[in-house]
């Protein structure tokens, strides 16, 4: 479900970094080591929650579009429908799906991001 990069691409980038000689005195290497730690954490969270998120997203997409299919097919159809104006960008059913998707993906990519609290705070108020 998650792309740009996929978990496989991220793992490949991580493996390439780990194969480089470590130069702990180099500031750039220190910075990249921290980035690599974050990449490992993302991969661990995605391994744990990715499949469940995709199954839930596929179910929501099927209900939203009235279609059946795998996640990629349905997600692609949703993008086409939005581009062609067949679904309005602020339609409540659409926003409910987008909200769930955004929450699911930030929980993998960056669970401490302030935007998650901001979105949940909105939901609490309305």
């Amino acid at each position, binding site marked *: 479900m998650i792309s740009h990069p996929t978990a496989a691409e991220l793992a490949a980038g991580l493996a390439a970094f780990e194969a480089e000689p470590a130069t702990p005195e180099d*500031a750039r290497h220190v910075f*990249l080591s921290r980035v690599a730690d974050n990449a490992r954490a993302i991969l661990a969270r995605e391994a744990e929650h990715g499949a469940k998120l995709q199954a839930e997203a596929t179910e929501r997409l099927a209900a939203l579009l009235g279609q059946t299919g795998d996640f990629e097919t349905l*997600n692609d159809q949703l993008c086409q429908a939005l581009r062609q104006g067949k679904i309005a960008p*602020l339609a409540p059913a659409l926003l409910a799906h987008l909200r769930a998707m955004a929450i699911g*993906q930030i929980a993998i990519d960056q669970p401490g991001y302030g935007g998650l609290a901001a979105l949940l705070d909105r939901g609490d108020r309305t």
Partner: protein
Amino acid sequence: MDVAAALDRLAPQLSPSATGAVNARRLSGGASLETWAFDLSDGTPLILRRRPDAALPRETALPLASEAALIRAAEAVGAPTPTVLKVCTPDDQLGEAYVMRRLEGETLGRRITRDEAFAAVRPGLARRCGEVLAQIHAAPTTNLPPLAISDARGELERYEGIYRDLDARRPILEAAFRWLKATAPPPPERPVLIHGDFRNGNLMIHPEQGLVGVLDWELAHLGDPAEDLGWICVNSWRFGAWRKPVGGFGDYAELLAGHGGDISLERVQFWQALGSLKWAVMCLMMYQSFATGADRSIERAMIGRRTSEAEIDLVTLMEGAT
């Protein structure tokens, strides 16, 4: 290229009492631009900005001579900027470069929004940002170097074009393009000088004097003043302090009042949303340089996973618009 030796030779031109330059050290590791700190022998602290020898020309970034000219133009209208001392020529053997004063303060957003050291200046900072942007936006545009002109609709089309070329399937971005195209404000009556990257991170903040320098002018252009006001409100530059929309340190009303009350909150929030959308596309673009093999660093791969931060902010903004 021996930057330290070239700076040593240049020193007498930078201060009449200097005989050389010492302590030259590279600060940032950007691929498109280098920043060096150094001191003159008389103690003057300075900064060198230069294009690396092998840098590819970037479509959107200004030539450094133009950047220097804009800093001077902003200084002339009273905006806080580091004074430019010298735009280098080929004789200086530094390539495309200029030298400016080194300001004292902090640019790291996380420290500015959280550290006790900045607690005294934080309350006045959003208003001050509005005042300084008003000065920049009022700068005479007749004698500026050549700059691109943009407006909301043009920016949406440009970024949607980039998004289409990337062939990504991101329904949140699709919805955001449609939403913002339907609500885009008309171009301003008169395009003004826009800094283009005015955000927490590009502002030098002093613990007592507050905003002492507006940095990084390489994305400056002519356009809608609300663009600069919206960009500093993008959640990605609030460093976790998301309840303070202006840079993680202030409120909309303070920013708008500082600017003179001439721009509506609605217009600023449109540009804020467009800012999140642009940041999402930029993250995808940076990931693309990993995917194509142009830059296989783990950093480039990982920035693709920041697209989702812009997406969650867009969902919050779209929900708020219903």
